[in-house]
């Protein structure tokens, strides 16, 4: 087996896809792209292409899962068979189940569930094409889709990863950097509330690097927030809908 090692960074800090250390990939978000879902969003984040659809609040099935005092939030993160290099089995993997859980817990603080006892809000995420940082991009789309569905929210959730590549802290790790780099840290932030609702790390960071990396990711989250906000504004104010 021959592995072609990409050079991940030039000496003057230019990354393998041409970005600077603190530069995000291109992001575009479209709101309200699905007709059947109560709310929806489509995000392109680097090479990630991800759809999110929201249904609810609606009745819970099976009923014994309902909560008398509050609504519940469910989340399914799923990758299309064609979204990755080798065709993926369509049945949800353990990885997808874990990511579904951390995304749910990252969205939960932003959603005001108390107002809808005995109901469920379902968030369905489909990764059509996967790149580094797909869970962050998925979260970004899901939060916008929740807003599009008219769910009352305390804040948006904005997510972005930082990492360590060629011994330097970089914003928004891409696929090659994720696979060949030294650390990947996905972070989700409620930008106005100032709460971090997702934090994971795979890799190896010195304590100082850990702090820098987190701060770098948070700067990225705030940039993503602007894109989310703009996408929602476009739908709800410029096109004049509702």
């Amino acid at each position, binding site marked *: 087996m021959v592995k072609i090692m990409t050079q991940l960074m030039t000496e003057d800090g230019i990354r393998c896809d041409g970005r600077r250390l603190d530069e995000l990939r291109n992001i575009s978000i479209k709101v309200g792209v699905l007709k059947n879902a109560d709310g929806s969003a489509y995000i392109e984040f680097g090479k990630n292409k991800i759809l999110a659809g929201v249904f609810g609040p609606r009745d819970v099935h099976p009923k014994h899962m309902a909560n008398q005092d509050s609504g519940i939030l469910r989340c399914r993160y*799923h990758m299309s*068979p064609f979204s990755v290099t080798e065709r993926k089995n369509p049945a949800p993997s353990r990885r997808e189940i874990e990511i579904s859980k951390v995304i749910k817990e990252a969205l939960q603080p932003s959603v005001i569930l108390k107002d809808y006892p005995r109901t469920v809000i379902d968030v369905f995420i489909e990764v059509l094409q996967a790149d580094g940082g797909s869970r962050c991009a998925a979260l970004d789309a899901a939060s916008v889709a929740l807003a599009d569905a008219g769910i009352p929210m305390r804040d948006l959730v904005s997510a972005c990863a930082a990492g360590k590549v060629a011994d330097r802290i970089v914003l928004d790790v891409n696929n090659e950097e994720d696979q060949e780099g030294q650390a990947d840290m996905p972070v989700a932030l409620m930008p106005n509330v100032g709460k971090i609702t997702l934090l994971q790390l795979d890799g190896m960071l010195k304590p100082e690097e850990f702090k820098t990396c987190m701060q770098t990711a948070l700067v990225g989250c705030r940039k993503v927030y602007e894109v989310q906000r703009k996408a929602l504004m476009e739908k709800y104010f410029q096109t004049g809908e509702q």
Partner: protein
Amino acid sequence: MNSQIIDQLKREKILELLKTGKRIDGRSLDEQRALTIETGVIPKANGSARIKLGNTEVITGVKIQPDKPFPDLGDKGILICTAEILPLADPNVEPGPPNEEVIELARVVDRGIRETEMIDLHQLVLIEDKSVIGMFIDSSVIDSGGNLFDACSYASVAGILSCTVPKYEIKDEAPVLVEGVTSKPPIKTLPVSVTMARIGDYVVVDPTKDEESCMDARITITTNSDGNICAVQKGGSDGFTAEQLIQCSETALSVGRKIRKQFEQLK
């Protein structure tokens, strides 16, 4: 229950219009909804398409990779079409293993492409009985607005037409990718699936979700470029007369020709 009453009222309204030769959305009985096809939407896949048929939207990705042939079919490559309805496509779809509706959908889409012999599978053999090229054509319904059979079929055909097939060489009996060399898939014909619904005494082409909710029976007929009828699937809880079915086969051919022209432009 409620929804049954609504379906009943819908049916009355739809039938009333059909008596005057009209449909709710203004189409004539044998008229399809507008079909838009975009290919290359998933650059990481070997082929892909995103199609809209009215309010129905489907994304198909094609993955091509070396595989072992099926036993007793060592002189043919592998072609597998799947279909799923994503839970974000429809409030009534629940995540989980496919139910009988989805299994039927996937199998009918697969048979339409297989039985028309769209792809010359003999050309996908690397070493007979040992190593062949496998094509996996996976369709995901992302918005469900009726007639998923045709929508998934069109997306699959468009996905295949957009494919570039990588080249493999055999080294030590194992296939090895040759970087940068690709070819078009060996296309022999263009299958077109046409689905019709019977509502009372009327048969309508390309039913919407509303029409499906009150239809009596359904028929999907797939034809090829030579005007042959290659695959048929009747569905729904009632039947057809023989005359209706023969009429349907003619409609499938005529409507199919229009769709096939759209496919021709993708070649």
